[in-house]
């Protein structure tokens, strides 16, 4: 077993454990902190997959913005966050059952696929994924339209969030 594989297993265990705690702990602030740890684990996976830009974007966007926004929302709804009873609804056993079935189904379908255990091809030394990604996002022959649609979506979400959360009194 190579060093990379050991790192993979450690990070995978960390991420899955943190994710499991994030969806089960009772205190919501703790859940958000576990979510941050899981997001860090995902960022490490992006590094292992030679996607350095996405790892940085993961830390900046998910941990820096989304997770902090969630902590703000939890604190603004404090009475609910300090609620002492169970945080799981009455159907949680069925939910766990569905989640296990989905995982088993995905694993079974994927394992019957012929490319399941592909090894990574060598990245050629001249390849520069970051430069490629940058030019693909603004190239008319590639992804400029989805990119612009995403920016309009972000603007709409920004204005919409302000209007929805506005206290009209």
């Amino acid at each position: 077993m190579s060093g990379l594989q050991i790192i993979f297993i450690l990070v995978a265990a960390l991420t899955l454990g943190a994710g499991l705690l994030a969806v089960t702990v009772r205190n919501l602030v703790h859940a958000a902190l576990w979510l941050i740890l899981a997001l860090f684990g995902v960022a490490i996976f992006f590094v292992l997959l030679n996607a350095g830009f996405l790892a940085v974007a993961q830390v900046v966007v998910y941990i820096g913005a989304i997770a902090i926004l969630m902590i703000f929302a939890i604190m603004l709804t404090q009475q609910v966050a300090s609620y002492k009873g169970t945080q799981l609804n009455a159907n949680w056993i069925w939910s766990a059952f569905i989640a296990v079935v989905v995982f088993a189904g995905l694993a079974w379908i994927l394992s019957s696929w012929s490319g399941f255990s592909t090894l990574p091809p060598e990245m050629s030394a001249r390849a520069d994924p970051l430069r490629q990604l940058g030019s693909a996002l603004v190239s008319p022959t590639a992804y400029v339209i989805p990119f612009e649609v995403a920016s309009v979506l972000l603007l709409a979400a920004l204005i919409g969030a302000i209007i929805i959360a506005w206290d009209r009194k």
Partner: protein
Amino acid sequence: MIPLSWYLVFSAALFAIGLFGVLARKNAVAILIGIELMLNSVNINLVAFWRYIAPDGISGQAFAVIVFAVAAAEVAVGLALIISIYRRRGTIAAEEIDMLKF
């Protein structure tokens, strides 16, 4: 060398955990936490397929960037809705937000 299967099984497990969070949690913010985990597992899948199957193109990473943008938009609007509901109804438990039933 890490085979592709490890990434696929890992992201399937993370997706299942997020799905459990979405289905089983009472609190609306906790449901959003589950959605974030699911989106992240999808991103890992996209990038893993890019690295293992088509490293010459860039589609996988470009898709992942779009998913980032959509996740940010979704969480901003979602949390604004939750805060607005909390202000009007004093609760954000998903089972008590049932105005549409009346």
